[in-house]
């Protein structure tokens, strides 16, 4: 049987693996992985990600006493101030996370935390508690490569989720179907794998949870729980929330649904049914180990197939963070990144709805594409003219630190000289996942060459 897996990683292979599992790697990062066997490389990635810890403490507000709910504010002014505080906190939290992504030696841990943030999408817009968003973030981070079952059970009683999908309003005498529907449609089984009656029965099973807003904890109130018998997905029993979740996980659709999502995130836009089915089976057998599913996927033929290189589209977070990592650029102010990714359609902690960011080609509309191009163009212009403003609306602009000479030299190029043919090939390989659409005009010097490549349509791909 012919295999597409390389015996040893080439520069292009290492770039593919690191680009897909992290944010675009710098040439120096790539060099450290060249020559490894694929399973060595994947195991190294996974063990690094499992041990990952944030490098910087989260913003101070996450350690302060729980803020009272907005609606508890007596007068209009106090409410306005609380709302302003909420916005500032959310921006600080997103900036902290983006900086972690920028600096992390184990970017896969960040990518998986982001993957689950998108899967169990919850928005601060409705939760209105930035500390609560951080509590949820810690939960996602803790289980990012661990047990999907534990993660699901944790999310179901996470206060932010209970608020976001109205679980906290679901009582025996007052069922609310919101969480019951979305947990099956979007978190476990997929659309069409359940009926309206299953939603009603599941809502009964989930009844009785509340959020103590002073402590930001979930509380079970037995008297508000419907203890009656339910019929859910063909099974009968006095299911409570945990039992109902396990009934869902027992459906054959569940592991397939999650693996399909992982596939589209890391491998290609359309999962191969047979290959994904085999991974789903291993995922199920491993006791829902996310790292096992990911290992199978990253060592699959499909992941390495030449036809699947450069077929995915960078998310705004990948584009912004990836560009900084790729060129070893630092911004003086991470908050600029929050504005940049938001304008391109991805504000962390504020997904558009419970389905999360739709991704793939949906990332690219004329609006977002122009914004993406403007970001890289301004970034390189700022390098050419230091202290230029990168983040629009930022006070006094954002400083950009990039040592172009240092970056170009190992590739045999210089900022103010036109690269020769060999150096041009190395630059393209370092910057793009595939050949550029537009040839770079003759006479373009090193630094402008990078700007030109970053404006090429191929720069949007990974």
């Amino acid at each position, binding site marked *: 049987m012919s295999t597409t897996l390389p015996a040893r990683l080439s520069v292009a292979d290492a770039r593919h693996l690191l680009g897909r599992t992290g944010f675009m790697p710098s040439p120096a990062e790539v060099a450290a992985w060249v020559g490894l066997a694929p399973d060595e490389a994947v195991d190294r990635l996974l063990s690094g990600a499992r041990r990952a810890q944030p490098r910087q403490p989260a913003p101070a507000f996450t350690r302060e006493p729980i803020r009272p709910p907005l609606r508890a504010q007596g007068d209009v002014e106090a409410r306005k101030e609380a709302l302003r505080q909420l916005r500032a906190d959310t921006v600080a939290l997103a900036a902290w996370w983006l900086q972690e992504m920028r600096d992390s030696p184990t970017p896969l841990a960040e990518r998986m935390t982001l993957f689950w943030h998108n899967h169990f999408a919850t928005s601060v817009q409705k939760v209105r508690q930035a500390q609560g968003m951080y509590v949820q973030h810690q939960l996602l981070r803790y289980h990012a490569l661990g047990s999907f079952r534990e993660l699901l059970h944790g999310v179901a009683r996470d206060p932010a989720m209970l608020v976001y999908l*109205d679980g906290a*309003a679901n*009582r025996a*005498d*007052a*069922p*609310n*179907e*919101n969480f019951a*529907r979305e947990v099956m*449609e979007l978190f476990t089984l997929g*659309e069409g794998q359940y009926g*309206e009656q299953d939603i009603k029965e599941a809502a009964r099973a989930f009844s009785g949870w509340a959020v103590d807003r002073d402590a930001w904890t979930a509380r079970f109130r037995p008297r508000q729980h419907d203890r009656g018998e339910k019929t859910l997905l063909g099974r009968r029993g006095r299911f409570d929330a945990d039992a109902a979740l396990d009934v869902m996980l027992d459906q054959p659709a569940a592991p397939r649904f999650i693996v399909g999502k992982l596939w589209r995130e890391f491998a290609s*836009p359309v999962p191969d049914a047979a290959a994904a089915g085999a991974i789903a089976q291993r995922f199920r057998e491993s006791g829902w180990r996310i790292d096992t599913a990911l290992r199978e996927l990253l060592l699959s033929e499909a992941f390495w197939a030449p036809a699947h290189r*450069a*077929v*995915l*589209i960078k998310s705004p977070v990948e584009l912004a963070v990836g560009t900084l990592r790729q060129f070893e650029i630092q911004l003086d102010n991470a908050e600029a990144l929050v504005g940049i990714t938001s304008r391109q*359609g991805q504000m962390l902690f504020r997904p558009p*709805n*419970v*389905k999360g960011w*739709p991704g*793939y*080609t*949906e990332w*690219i*509309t*004329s*609006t*977002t*594409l*122009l*914004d993406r*191009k*403007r970001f890289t*163009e301004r970034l390189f212009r700022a390098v050419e003219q230091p202290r230029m403003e990168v983040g629009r609306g930022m006070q006094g602009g954002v400083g950009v630190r990039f040592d172009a000479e240092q970056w170009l030299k190992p590739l045999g190029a210089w900022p103010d000289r036109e690269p020769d043919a060999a150096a041009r090939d190395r630059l393209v390989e370092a910057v793009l996942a*595939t050949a550029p*659409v*537009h040839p770079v005009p003759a006479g373009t010097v090193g630094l402008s060459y990078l700007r030109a490549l970053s*404006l090429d*349509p*191929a720069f*949007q*791909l990974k």
Partner: protein
Amino acid sequence: MIDRRQLLSLGGLAFPALGWAQAAASAAGRVLVLVELKGGNDGLNTVVPYAHPAYAQLRPSLALKADEVLRLDGALGLHPSLAPLIPMWEKRELAVLLGLGYPQPNLSHFRSIEIWDTASRATEYLDEGWVARAMSAGLRDSARFTTEGVAIGSASLGALTGANAVSLTNPEAFVTQARLVRPAAVQGNAALEHVLRVESGVLQAADGLRGQGAVTLATEFPSHNFGQAVRATCQIVAGQKGKGGVPVFHLTHGSFDTHRGQLGTHANLLKQLAEGLAALKAGLVEAGAWERTLVVTYSEFGRRARQNQSGGTDHGTAAPHFVMGGAVRGGRFIGSMPDLDRLDGNQNLVHTADFRQLYATIARRWWGVNPEPVVRGSFDLLPFLEV
């Protein structure tokens, strides 16, 4: 002293308005503005069956009182927040389509809006939006459009998916930034093809919109997002005089997903909607385009007839929608109200009209194209257009 309104109509005459208006009587000059109420707008509290005894029973804390609603006839009235729409109703430029839905209703936000956007059956999955199919059915050949559609804001293209359409927030900024794009043949894998198609759409639209910077309207637009999307729409329409123009706009407003604490949220959203729609009319009148514009609201579904215990409503089915414009036969209801005494198995309303009747009517009467490929079948038209 000349008051502002008079000045406007004088200003309006500065354009070769008459010749243009005649040319625009054909389908090619017409504009369709689609206003998507994201999240599922609660129809029963929008067009309120205030006189029906079941209404108050189903909604102990959410039912609007008979003396609050803006009565349109003996049975139905508008939510009080919709007061800015009443002048349009009285001028017969606004009609209410009752009970729009489709068989085998899907209660998922995402699937249901996909059904509305693609005009598919509940059981089939289509890639193209219904507007794109109207383009292929002949609309594309009727004029040299600047671009086939504009979605305002970062919203998805929705019904414009598959057409040669763009999204933008600010028309001037869009034209300026288009310089970052260079022409290229569409090539490569699906992802690269998509990027290149978007790029070529940007180039084409920017060509058509260039030189519009000078358009300033005296109409005042609300400062909220929806009001600003209305402003951009009016600016583009006003700047397109005598050019191929933009035939379709897609605006969004919401979220109307009011599972809890609905009363305040809904009142606020409807107020913004009505303010925005009133400003849309004013801006289009100023641009001399109201007679050739059709405005339509839609949403993925209505909401549950019986309120939930969180002071909200869960996902539902059929709902009423508005059609507005100078060519609308308004001041009346089209179709019939779903029966509050005969709900379906999920306690939801049973639709009395198919949303594809609305689209088929637009295809046939507004654009003059064969509706069959647009809605993939034969649907009775709805009598809401004068043309």
